[in-house]
């Protein structure tokens, strides 16, 4: 671990002031940052501890939604009565991720800003454009089991590892940030970046900008939803592919609106408005769900080791849509798949 200066902020304004003008990282739950400090992947000269910021609340918003404070833990968020009752898709996705110990420390803001689990990113002896811009990408032509099939570039094929973010994408959340030039809101679909030719930037945060909260809209798809996560073991592993689905059905059982987001396949939770539009006004059916899957996976390419993900994702999308339409969401405790 590199040596660094440590500063503790009492509120968001102070955190942003302390952040100016140095290679710094905010410290929230520490579950990703401390790991990356130990690996020498992150080498800030200053760590600004934001744990004491008064941003741990979960409160109602004026438009009938819910505001999740950036410093609320993943565990407190998943088990918050309002989240469980109105946004069970989010609860389920959070509980599918990491372990109870990690979720007790990990925060909502930290979850959004956690970095990729690409093994070459973690290995400082490997070339990696995300870690060391311009050095190349060891994953291309390397071991690609966990890498992207959508939206990647020749500069980087990493995926965003979060489960929570896949649900937030389907729920169309808004990220609230505060920075040196004031406050702004970012639609969740725009928050994470595709790698393009600058994979070193994971998201739209400018230098010194702090996530203060995540706002959920009033629609929570509480009746017809699922979070289906497929991984190499049944617990405590990152997704190979995951699917978050929220559907609203009318009285005749037809789909009024549908949201589908994929995890484990791209640099960001993957959504395709054209695929979602196919669901509108339709009765749930296997044929329809296959059509949606094909539309979502349009342009998917494998890199050898991750070729299997294309077919895995297709099957997962269909299964998840069926679970959501039937109102039988995937259990995060009893994960056996028949």
């Amino acid at each position, binding site marked *: 671990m590199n040596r660094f200066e440590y500063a503790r902020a009492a509120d968001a304004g102070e955190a942003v002031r302390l952040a100016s003008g140095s290679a710094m990282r905010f410290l929230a739950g520490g579950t990703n940052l401390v*790991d990356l400090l*130990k690996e020498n992947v992150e080498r800030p000269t200053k760590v600004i501890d934001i744990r004491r910021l008064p941003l741990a609340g979960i409160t109602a918003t004026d438009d009938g939604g819910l505001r999740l404070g950036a410093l609320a833990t993943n565990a407190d968020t998943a088990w918050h009565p309002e989240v469980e009752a109105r946004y069970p898709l989010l609860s389920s996705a959070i509980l599918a991720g990491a372990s*109870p110990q*990690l979720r007790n420390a990990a925060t909502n803001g930290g979850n959004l800003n956690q970095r990729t689990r690409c093994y070459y990113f973690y290995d400082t002896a490997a070339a990696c454009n995300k870690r060391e811009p311009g050095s190349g990408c060891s994953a291309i032509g390397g071991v690609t089991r966990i890498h992207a099939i959508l939206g990647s570039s020749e500069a980087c094929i990493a995926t965003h590892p979060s489960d929570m973010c896949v649900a937030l994408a389907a729920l169309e959340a808004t990220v609230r940030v505060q920075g040196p030039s004031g406050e702004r809101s970012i639609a969740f679909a725009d928050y994470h970046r595709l790698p393009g030719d600058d994979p070193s930037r994971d998201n739209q945060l400018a230098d010194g900008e702090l996530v203060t909260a995540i706002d959920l809209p009033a629609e929570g798809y509480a009746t017809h939803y699922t979070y289906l996560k497929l991984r190499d073991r049944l617990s405590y592993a990152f997704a190979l592919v995951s699917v978050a689905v929220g559907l609203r059905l009318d009285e005749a059982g037809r789909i009024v609106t549908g949201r589908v987001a994929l995890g484990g396949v791209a640099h960001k939770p993957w959504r395709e408005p054209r695929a979602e539009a196919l669901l509108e006004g339709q009765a749930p059916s296997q044929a329809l769900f296959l059509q949606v899957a094909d539309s979502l996976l349009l342009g998917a390419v494998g890199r050898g080791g991750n070729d299997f993900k294309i077919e895995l994702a297709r099957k997962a999308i269909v299964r998840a849509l069926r679970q959501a339409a039937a109102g039988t969401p995937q259990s995060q405790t*009893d994960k056996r798949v028949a």
Partner: protein
Amino acid sequence: MDTRVHSPAAALGDSGIPITLQLNGFSHTARVEPWVTLLDLLREEAHLTGTKKGCDHGQCGACTVLLDGKRVNSCLQLAVSVDGSAVQTIEGLAESGEGGGLDPLQQAFMDHDAFQCGYCTPGQICSARGLIAEGKARTREEVRELMSGNLCRCGAYTNITDAVMSVLQREGLAK
């Protein structure tokens, strides 16, 4: 608050940032460099070696302690950042049972032979204590899922689940 003092200020070095923890009920003062983890502070400075260093990267659960009553991986916490918190380790649990004896979970682990090498056991027991406090696990399946942050290489999982279930049953929390 408990006002017992564990390490006298005079014994401390003079570099680093001063912090105070409530450590197993004792007030513990130390000076730490910002990059020292809570796990290293517990083992190297406070000589509480019950908490084990397994992977040191949040992947095995051997370093699990209760931080302000909640189970966390102490290898991923910077000691400076938990200044002012209460920390309970396996040594603290050992005095928390009836009449200052073993925690019922510790007895249950012995009764059910829930360990082989013992390296993962302190973390398993601290994690189980946290699980019971969270109140979300009532069935075997739920115990298995909510103990999944603790890996045991020798595969004592079945007996660990038995031990945790027996305590949940005793406390009337099992379904």
